[in-house]
C-alpha cells in the first residue's frame, strides 16, 4: 500500500472514532451529575434566572437535538464557547496545545533517552547487579505519584536550595514574553533573539521536564529490557554470534532489531503520559492543554470538556499514524495497514 493510500484510509477511519468519542463524552457530561448552571447562576439566582441560562445554553432542548447541533458545529470547525469564560474553545485549545506539546516532547524525549540505553544495558546481562538495580528503580518510578514528585522537587529546588524559579508557569513575571511565532516561549525567544525570555522559559521548563522524564523513563526501560532479551534469544542474534562477530557489533544488531517494537511501545505510552503531563501542568501552574482539560472536567465546563476530549483523541490517532509511518521507514518490510 502506498503512503498516500495509507494516509487516506487512516483519515477515513478516524471519522467514526471521532463521532463515537463526541457522542460518548456528550452523553456522559450531560447525563451525569455535572451541572454548570448552578455555578453560573450563583447562589442567589431565582428560578427564572436558572431557566434563562438553561435556555441560552440550549440545555432545555431534547438531548438528541443538542447533539445534532453540536455535531454540526464540530464538522464546521466550531467547538463552541466555554460556558465559564465565554472564550471560543477551539482558540483556547490551539493556543495551549503547543505549550503542552513542548513539555511532552521534551519530557518523553529525555525519558526515552534514559530508558532505552539503560534497558538495553540491563538486558545484556539479565539478573546482573545493574539489572537488579534498574529493575527496582523502574518499579519505583511506576509507584511515584507524579504530582507528589513535582511538589517535592519544588520544595527542594525552589524553597530549600533556591536553584529553581518559583512554579508559577512558563515565564518569570519580571520578563515580558517574546513575540508569538510558534507559541512556545523557548523557541520564540530563540527565534527572535530575545535571550532573556528564552533563558527564563528554559529555567521554568527544567523541573517539570525532569519530573516527566523520570516518570516516563520507568515503563520505557522495563519494556526495552524485555524486548531486547527476546531479540537476544532470536535466530538473528544467534547467527551473528555464530559468525564470531565482536560483541559491539552484535549489540548493534540487537539495537537495530529492537528499534521497531521499542518505538511502537513509546508511541502507545505517549497517550498514557498525557495524563501524567496534565498532573505536572497542574502542579507547576503550566497553563497548557492538560491543565485546561483537568480544570474543565473538575468545573463541569461541558463544551470545554468535549473540545478537550476531541483534541486528545485526535492527538492519539495522529501519534499512532506517525508511528506506523516511522516504523515503515525503518522497516520497509512491514506493511502499512
Amino acid at each position, binding site marked *: 500500500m502506498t503512503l498516500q493510500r495509507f494516509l487516506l484510509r487512516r483519515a477515513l477511519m478516524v471519522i467514526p*472514532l471521532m463521532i*463515537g*468519542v463526541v457522542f460518548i*463524552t456528550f452523553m*456522559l*457530561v450531560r*447525563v*451525569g*451529575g*455535572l451541572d454548570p448552571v448552578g455555578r453560573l447562576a450563583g447562589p442567589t439566582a431565582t428560578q427564572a434566572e436558572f431557566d434563562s441560562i438553561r435556555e441560552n445554553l440550549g440545555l432545555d432542548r431534547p438531548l438528541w437535538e443538542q447533539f445534532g447541533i453540536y455535531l454540526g458545529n464540530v464538522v464546521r470547525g466550531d467547538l463552541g464557547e466555554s460556558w465559564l469564560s465565554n472564550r471560543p474553545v477551539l482558540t483556547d485549545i490551539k493556543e495551549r496545545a503547543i505549550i503542552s506539546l513542548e513539555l511532552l516532547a521534551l519530557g518523553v524525549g529525555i525519558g526515552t533517552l534514559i530508558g532505552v540505553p539503560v534497558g538495553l544495558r540491563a538486558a545484556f546481562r*539479565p*539478573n546482573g547487579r545493574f539489572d537488579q538495580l534498574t*529493575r*527496582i528503580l523502574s*518499579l*519505583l518510578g*511506576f*509507584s*511515584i*505519584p507524579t*504530582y*507528589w514528585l513535582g*511538589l*517535592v522537587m*519544588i*520544595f527542594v529546588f*525552589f*524553597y530549600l536550595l533556591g536553584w529553581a524559579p*518559583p*512554579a508559577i508557569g512558563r515565564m518569570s513575571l519580571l520578563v515580558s514574553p517574546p513575540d508569538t511565532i510558534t507559541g512556545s516561549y523557548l523557541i520564540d525567544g530563540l527565534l527572535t533573539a530575545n535571550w532573556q525570555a528564552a533563558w527564563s522559559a528554559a529555567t521554568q521548563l527544567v523541573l517539570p521536564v525532569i519530573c516527566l522524564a523520570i516518570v516516563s523513563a520507568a515503563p520505557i526501560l522495563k519494556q526495552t529490557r*524485555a524486548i531486547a*532479551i*527476546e531479540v537476544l*534469544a532470536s535466530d538473528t542474534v544467534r547467527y551473528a554470534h555464530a559468525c564470531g562477530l565482536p560483541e559491539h557489533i552484535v549489540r548493534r544488531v540487537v539495537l537495530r532489531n529492537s528499534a521497531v517494537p521499542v518505538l511502537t511501545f513509546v508511541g*502507545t505510552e505517549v*497517550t*498514557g*503520559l*498525557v*495524563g*501524567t503531563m*496534565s*498532573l505536572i501542568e*497542574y*502542579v507547576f501552574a503550566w497553563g497548557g492543554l492538560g491543565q485546561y*482539560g*483537568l480544570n474543565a*472536567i*473538575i468545573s*463541569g465546563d461541558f463544551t470545554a*470538556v468535549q473540545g478537550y*476530549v476531541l483534541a*486528545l*483523541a485526535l492527538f*492519539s*490517532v495522529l501519534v499512532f499514524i506517525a508511528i506506523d509511518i516511522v516504523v515503515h521507514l525503518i522497516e520497509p518490510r512491514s506493511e502499512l495497514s
Partner: protein
Amino acid sequence: MAKTTPTYPTQTQPFSARQRVSNRLIGLFRISPTAVIGLLIILFFGVLALFSPWIMPHDPVSSYTDRVLQAPSAEHWFGTDGNGMDVFSRVIYGAKYGFGIAIPAVLLSLIIGVPVGLIAGYRGGLLDEVLMRFFDGLRVFPSIILALAVVAATGQSLLNVVLVLGVLDSPVFARVVRAEVLALRSSNFVESAVAAGNPTWRILFVHLLPNAIQGAMAQTAVRAAWAVRISATLAFLGVGVQAPTPEWGAMIRQGAEFMVSGQWWVALYPGLALICMVFGLNLFGDGLQDLMDPRRRAAK
C-alpha cells in the same frame, strides 16, 4: 529377621490446597525474593489498616487548634497539618482507604472482566470484534483522564470511585482471559465437553474458567497498585474523597500549598506512604507475573 522393603518418600496424593499455597510461596521466594519483600510491605500496610485504632497516637480527624502546622516533634511524629490534625495518625488511617478502594475495585474488575473475556473469546464473531474495538477506543484516553471525567460526571463519593475504577479496569482482565480462551477453545477437553452435551455456561465457567483464570490472577496485584494510585490522584485533584478525610491523595492536596512556604511534612509523609504501598504491590505483582508466566520466567 523380616525383610523390610525400603520406603521412598513419594507423593501419592495430590497436593492439598494448603500445600499448594505453601509450595507456591516457596516457589515465589526462589524465583523472586523481591516479590516476597513486596508481600511483606503489603502485609505491613494491612496491619496498619486493621489495627489503626490501636496504633494511632491521636484521632486522625480531631484538630488541635492551638497546634496548627507544627513541625515534626516527639508528640506529633509527622507534625500537624493546616487544621492542626496529627499527620502521623492520618497517614496510618490512610492505609484503610488504600485497601478499601483497591480490593473492591479489583474484585469488581474481575467480576466484570472475566466473564466478558470468557464469552468474547469463546463466542468470537461480531460480539468479540465490537468489544475489542471498544476497548481499543478506550485506550485513546489516559486512564486518569477517563477516571476523572467519569467520576466527576457520575457523582463524587467513595463508593462511586470504587465503581468507576472497577468498571474502567475490567478490560485488562477481559483481554487476558480472552487471549487464553482463544488458545484453549479448540483443545480436546473443551471439544469433549461440548460433545458430552454440556451447556455453554457450564463449558465457560466449569471447564474453561479454571484453565483461563491464571493470567488474570497474575495481574491482580499490579491492578491493585493502579487502583491505589489513581484513587489517590483523584483525591489530590479534589474529586471523589474530599479533605479533611485522612486519605493520602487528599492529604497531599492539603499540603501542596505549604510546600512553597516550607511546611513540607504535610504533603511529604502521605506521599511516602502512598509510594511504599504502591511499590509493595508492584513488587509483589511483578513476581506474581513471573511465577505464573513461564515465558517471562525463562526470560530472566
